[in-house]
Structures are given as C-alpha cells and as structure tokens.
C-alpha cells in the first residue's frame, strides 16, 4: 500500500512536470513563430505612423534620419528621434517612446512640425479598456496643432472626454519633454563614451551634457586625443581629457578629469598591461589622484606608497597627467583675477579711468604669456588698452601690465617679479619712463649699454611687449578712412554742409558696429549728426551712414552691402525714403510689409539704427 502511495507521490508530480514541459515547448515554438511577426507589426505601425502624424500622403516616399537623443529623454523611455524628409525638405521630427502609464508597454509616437505638435500615434498599449485605452484614443485630437511651448493634455473644465489621470499624467510628462527637446533644435552630441565613464573620471554625481572641445597641438603629440566639457543642467562640472599612451604595452586608453583646482579622477577605458603589475597599478590611480590640488605632484611612487608598483606603466601616465594639468590651468579654467583700476591707470599713466571691459584672448596671445586684455574706459569712452602678461625673464613670474593709447605705448606697470634686485629688478623700475609715448610700431628697449648684464630679462620683455604692441595695432587701433562730405550731405538729405568734426564714440557703440560719429557743420554751425555703421544683415559688410537732425532721422546713405540684389539689396535702396523724418525716439522699420522674408537684413539694420538713435538723443540732452 505504502509503496503504491509513494510511487504515486512521485509519479504524479512527475507527470505534471512533464505536461508543463510539454506546454513550455509548445509555447516556445509559438513564440518563435510569432515574435518576429509581432515585431514587424509594430515596426509597420511605426513606419506608417511617421506619415500619419505629419500628414504626409501614404504614397509619398519619405526619408528617415535618426538623430541622437539626449540622456534626459532616454531615461524617460524615448527610444528614437527621427527626422522625416520628403526629398530635400525637412517635414518634421517624430519621437518614438515606450512608457508606463497605468500598465507598462505604452508605446507611441509623437511628431512635431514647425512650432506645433503634429500628432500622436499609438502603437500599442496595455491600458485598461474603458479607462486608459479610451483616453488614448482622444490624445491625437487634443494635442494636434498645439504650440510646442504650451502645456498639453490639461484636465481642466474644457476637456469633457474620458479621463485617466495616471495614463494622462505619464503621457503629458513625456510629450512635453519631447516638445522641449524639439524646440532646442538639434540635440546635443552624444559622447563617444558612456556618461558613466565621464562621471567616473570626475568623481561627480551626475552629468547630462558632454561637449567636445579642441585639444591643443602640443597635447595631441603626447597622446591626448580629446578634450570634453562635462555639464549638468548647463553648469560646467569639469573638464575630461581622453588619452592613449604606451606603458609596458601600447594602448593604455583612459579618461582623466579635472575640476576646480584639483584632479577630478582617472577612468581606465582599456589597457593591455600585465595583470598584477601594470593593470593593478592603473586600478589604484583614481583613488590616488582624486581631489589632489593641481599644484601638487601626483603618483609619487616612493616608500610612502604601499600599493602595486609598475614603473614602466607609471612614467608615461604621470607625464601625460602633468601635461593635461598644465593645459587645464593654462586654458584659463582657473580664471586669472583682473587687476585693480589703480594699476590700469598706472599702466596708462592717467588717473581718471573708472571702468574696463575684457577682451577674449587668442591662443597666440595666451601662448605668449598674455593673461588678460583690458579696454580701459572713462565715462564709457575708451582711454586705452592694457595687456596683463606673465613671462619668464631671468626667472619665472615676471608679471606686469603694458598700456597703449592712440598708436603709442602709454605705460608699463610692474605687478610682481623674481628678477635679481640689483639687475633685472632695478631695470624694471625704469621701463615705464623708457617706453612711454614711443610709437607702438617701433621696437623698444634697444639701448645695448643699459641692457648689458640683464640680457634674459630684456629679451623676454622685448618679445612680450612686441607681441602686445603687434596685437594692439592689428586689432585695437584701426583707423577708419572718413567718408566724403557728399555722403554726409546725402545722409542728412541736405546739400549745404561744408565741413564736419569727429565725435568720440562709446565702446559699447563700437561693439554694435558704429565706426565713426560725425558732427556735420554748415558755416561752422552744427546742423546734424551722422553715424557711420558697418554691421551684418543677411551677410556681413552692410556699410552705411545714418543721419539725425533735430528730433528725427534725417536720412540713410548706403555705402556698401553684400545683401542679395533682389531682396535685401532692393530693400536697402528704399530705407532712406522710409526713415526720413521719423522721430528718433520711435522704433524704426516696423510693420513694413516689405520686411517679409528679409528678417536678417531688417533686424541687422533696425538694431544698428536704433542704437545710433539712442546715442544721438542722449547726446542732445
């Protein structure tokens, strides 16, 4: 009896297991048969969806290009971003996404065209029939045509269809996210590495944007291939360099991060170093350098270091990290503090400057030791240009200011130096007196007798000053040929002007393209003011005069332009007629039907004209 029971207890479950296995087999078979077809169905629907959403006729051939998707969107379930073209024209952008509403697996497409939602196409969902499912049927009608900066799927009084708060909420979030991304235009570049790797190289919490920036030549020859800015929410988190060096074996490929004034970290991508020796050494590097200030030496493999050693691996890594650190600092990541106004005044041998603005430096200037370039202002008018430089004379740290005005050296102000007191140090105290008022185009400090014994200091100074002077003359002191009296008359719609004088221009106006400001005279009496402007419309080189008399625009005289003949070019010929006698205090060139299609020309003009008008009116008070 017991035996029968026992055998039953074994046989029955076995039987059940057998049936279950059989069932599993049947299911696997069915799955293999149907899975590709189901995928195909979904894909078909998606393809049709592109045309459906953007209202393209099903018979028209479309071209699809995939665009990269920002992490923010992929985290929320967006799987694809596709640009849809008919022929050459971009019709719209469609996003594919799979999210969880009430149930998971809510797959859909949302499309954008111009600046509105183009439509919504549901591919598949597991939402509850009667609730979520019904809600989804109305989504397309509700979002179609809504502007992309407006919220969608609002559940206020105006909506009377089926509601499904959970489905609707989840959908709304993703739709608006896609709209925001579409509004940005082309999405940021997806980095060649995973976000996690950049985050690891900087030992930070998170990042959502990687921007590749140029690496200087000197680094490239040493094996540094890329340099990235790592951002989160638009704020720079740190800089990451990518390099490949040869240790014991070639191909140590890594990321090194820098943030603030410290090393961020070290992230190994791949290496062929020996396990237990080089490989183990590489694994320790991140912990050893993270957080170390950049002015301290790193990876010192002396008695104090108890981890694995690998001299052949270590040496090239150390060298490259040092180069990266120098580059990181030299690139101005650690911004040099601007100097004081007192010093700037001293560098120009004046007393009255009250403000300055900084000019971006070219790589050449930086390589030559220029730290900062100041336009020194008094009451908004430029009174000089000062270069702050740090070079090596006899010793490092020769830190000074050199000033220029008109076409001359204006002065020299020493900020710090390590030069030998009785030699270079002494020499430096005289430089201001020696170069002041000398033409910037001429070489300076050439008295051999005086220079004896301080060759290194002098040579370094000469090179540095020459660099600054050359840059100043090339970029900061251009002289514009003044225009003819005939043109000035035309700009005022007069014929009677006999002479003019030049008026000084505020720096801010120069930034806006104003070249010169003329006070136009008839028999010695001022009748109007003319501004000469060179700005960019559709193309660069839109060069003209605009005149003011009394409280109004007096006229417009085109001197040169590259605008398209039948469009901007044609428009410009009519401007004189349109602005003549318009009040200078009113916005100009608005509401003109001829503005259509010439947005850039018109905007360029308008901005410049109104800038002149404002300055003119200010000057009349």
């Amino acid at each position, binding site marked *: 009896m017991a035996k029968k029971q026992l055998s*039953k207890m074994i*046989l*029955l*479950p076995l*039987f*059940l297991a057998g*049936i*279950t296995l059989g*069932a599993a087999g*049947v*299911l696997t078979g*069915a*799955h293999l*048969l*149907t*899975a590709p*077809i*189901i995928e195909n*169905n*979904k894909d078909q*629907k998606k393809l049709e969806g592109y045309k459906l959403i953007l209202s393209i006729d099903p018979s028209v051939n479309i071209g699809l290009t995939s665009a990269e998707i920002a992490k923010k969107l992929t985290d929320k379930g967006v799987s694809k971003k596709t640009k849809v073209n008919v022929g050459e024209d971009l019709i719209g952008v469609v996003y594919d996404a799979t999210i969880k509403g009430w*149930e998971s697996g809510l797959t859909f497409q949302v499309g954008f065209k111009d600046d509105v939602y183009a439509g919504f196409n549901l591919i*598949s*969902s*597991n*939402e*509850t*029939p*009667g609730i979520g*499912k*019904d809600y989804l049927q109305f989504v397309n009608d509700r979002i179609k045509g809504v502007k992309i900066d407006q919220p969608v799927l609002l559940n206020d009084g105006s909506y009377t269809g*089926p509601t499904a708060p959970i489905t609707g909420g989840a959908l709304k979030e993703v739709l608006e996210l896609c709209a925001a991304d579409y509004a940005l235009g082309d999405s940021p570049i997806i980095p060649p590495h995973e976000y996690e790797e950049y985050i690891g190289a900087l030992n930070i919490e998170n990042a959502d944007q990687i921007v590749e920036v140029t690496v200087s030549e000197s680094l490239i020859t040493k094996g540094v291939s890329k340099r990235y800015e790592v951002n989160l929410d638009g704020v720079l988190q740190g800089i990451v360099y990518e390099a490949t060096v040869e240790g014991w074996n070639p191909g140590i490929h890594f990321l090194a991060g820098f943030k603030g004034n410290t090393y961020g970290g070290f992230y190994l991508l791949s290496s062929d170093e020996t396990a237990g020796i080089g490989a183990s050494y590489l694994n320790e590097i991140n912990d050893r350098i993270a957080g170390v200030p950049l002015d301290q030496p790193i990876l010192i493999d002396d008695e104090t270091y108890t981890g694995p050693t690998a001299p052949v691996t270590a040496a090239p890594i150390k060298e490259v990290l040092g180069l990266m650190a120098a580059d990181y600092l030299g690139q101005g990541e650690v911004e040099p503090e601007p100097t004081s106004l007192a010093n700037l005044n001293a560098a120009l041998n004046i007393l009255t400057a009250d403000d300055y603005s900084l000019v971006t430096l070219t790589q050449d200037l930086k390589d030559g030791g220029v730290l900062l370039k100041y336009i020194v202002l008094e009451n908004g008018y430029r009174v000089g240009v000062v270069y702050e430089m740090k070079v090596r004379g006899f010793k490092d740290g020769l830190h000074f200011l050199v000033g220029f005005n008109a076409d001359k050296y204006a002065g020299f102000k020493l900020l710090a130096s390590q030069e030998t007191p009785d030699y270079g140090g002494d020499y430096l105290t005289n430089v201001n007196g020696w170069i002041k008022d000398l033409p910037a185009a001429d070489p300076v400090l050439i008295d051999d007798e005086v220079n004896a014994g301080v060759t290194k200091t002098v040579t370094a100074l000469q090179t540095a000053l020459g660099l600054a002077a050359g840059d100043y003359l090339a970029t900061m002191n251009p002289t514009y040929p003044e225009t003819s009296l005939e043109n000035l008359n035309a700009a005022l719609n007069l014929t009677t002007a006999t002479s003019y004088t030049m008026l000084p221009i505020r720096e801010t106006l120069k930034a806006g393209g104003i070249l010169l400001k003329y006070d136009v005279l008839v028999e010695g009496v001022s009748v109007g003011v003319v501004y000469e402007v060179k700005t960019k419309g559709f193309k660069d080189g839109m060069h003209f005069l605009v005149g003011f008399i009394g409280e109004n625009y007096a006229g417009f005289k085109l001197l040169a332009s590259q605008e398209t003949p039948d469009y901007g070019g044609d428009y410009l010929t009519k401007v004189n007629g349109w602005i003549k006698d318009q009040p200078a205090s009113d916005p100009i060139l608005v509401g003109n039907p001829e503005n259509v299609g010439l947005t850039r020309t018109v905007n360029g003009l308008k901005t410049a004209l109104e800038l002149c008008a404002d300055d003119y009116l200010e000057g009349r008070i």
Partner: protein
Amino acid sequence: MKKHKIFTDGIFANNAAFMLFLGMCPMLATTKDFMSALGMGIAVLATLILTNTAISAIRKWVPNEIRIPILIVIIATIVSVIEMFMQAYMFDLSQTLGVYLSLIVVNCIILGRAEAFAMKNNVFDSFLDALGTGVGFLAGLAVLAIAREFIATGGLAFSSLLTGQKLWSFQIIPTAYTIPIFSDAPGAFIMFGLLVGLVNFIIMKAADHKKKKAALVAAGGQ
C-alpha cells in the same frame, strides 16, 4: 444526449453570461462597444473550442488527483498561444482586448466546461459543447454591448476586426438624449443587472406559461 441539444443548451439554458454568471470580468470590461465585445467573444470561443477538444482528447490519461493543475496548464498554454497569434495576425484586436486576453485563462467558463463536460465526454460532443457555450457567451456579450453602446452613444459603430479600420456607423438616438454613463463602469453593472432582470423575467413568464399549459393539458386531458 441529442447532439443538437448540447449545442443549444450552451446558448440558452446554460448561457454562461446570463444563466451561470461565469466569465463576468471580461463581460463588463469589453462590452463598451460592439466591436470589442465581438472580438472578445471570438477569442473566448476559439479558446473554448481548443481547450475542450484538447482536454477531451487526453481525458483518459489524466490522473484524477492532479487533474486541476493539468487542466490549468493546458488552458494557460492555449491562451498564451492564442495571444501570440493574435498579436501577430490581428494586431489591432489584440491591442483592443489588452490584458483581458491574458485573463481568459482564469475565465471560469473555460475551466468550468473543461471540468464539467470535456473530462467526461468524447471529443465531438465536447466540441459541440464548446461551440454552444462559446456562441452563447458571444451572444451575451453582444447583447450587453449593443444595449450599452446604443444608450451611451445613440448608435453603433462597426470596424474591421483585423485592421481596426472603421467601416460603418450609424446613430439613431440624437446625442442630446444619450446617457454616457453606460459607457463607463457603473453603466456596465447597471445595464447588466437590468438585462439579467429582463432575462429572468422572460424565463419566469415562460415557466409560468408552461405550467399553465401543463395544467390545462392535465385538466383538459381528463
């Protein structure tokens, strides 16, 4: 038992929806409109036919002690296969039915008929029973769906089961007089309740009538 009676029993006397109150979950959910009800009914019908015949075919080899789990495994397998094939070949319909397709597994009708009939009868009879019950269920679904759709939207809409494309629709009751709540959950329950009451009413009247007739016959036969 007469063959055709097996069939008709399934539709009338043993109607799964209105008589036995089995399989109510999908009933209320998928009868919002006629086409989904139709789709669901067909799915259940297909499942029933397959499960009844399959189980009837192997009934002699199923040990009694573990028959319930085995039935369940077979039913679950068949439903999974139907689900997969529906997603492959009738994609839109599978989307419409959604999770209720999976829930056919626990639809009392399937297990009920398998246990009560297929285990005890031959394949052909089981097939007829499945057909009858399935059609009966389908009819029940259809009636409820038509009633709900009519009152909620004023008319009916027809679309293709395979592609989901709308084919034809008509509306009799003007929109102002429709009662939309019948489209929603409460309406489902209420309408179902009303129909049950109606069916009961008809049956009771028929039973009464039969009684009276029998009484008459008995009286008249004397």
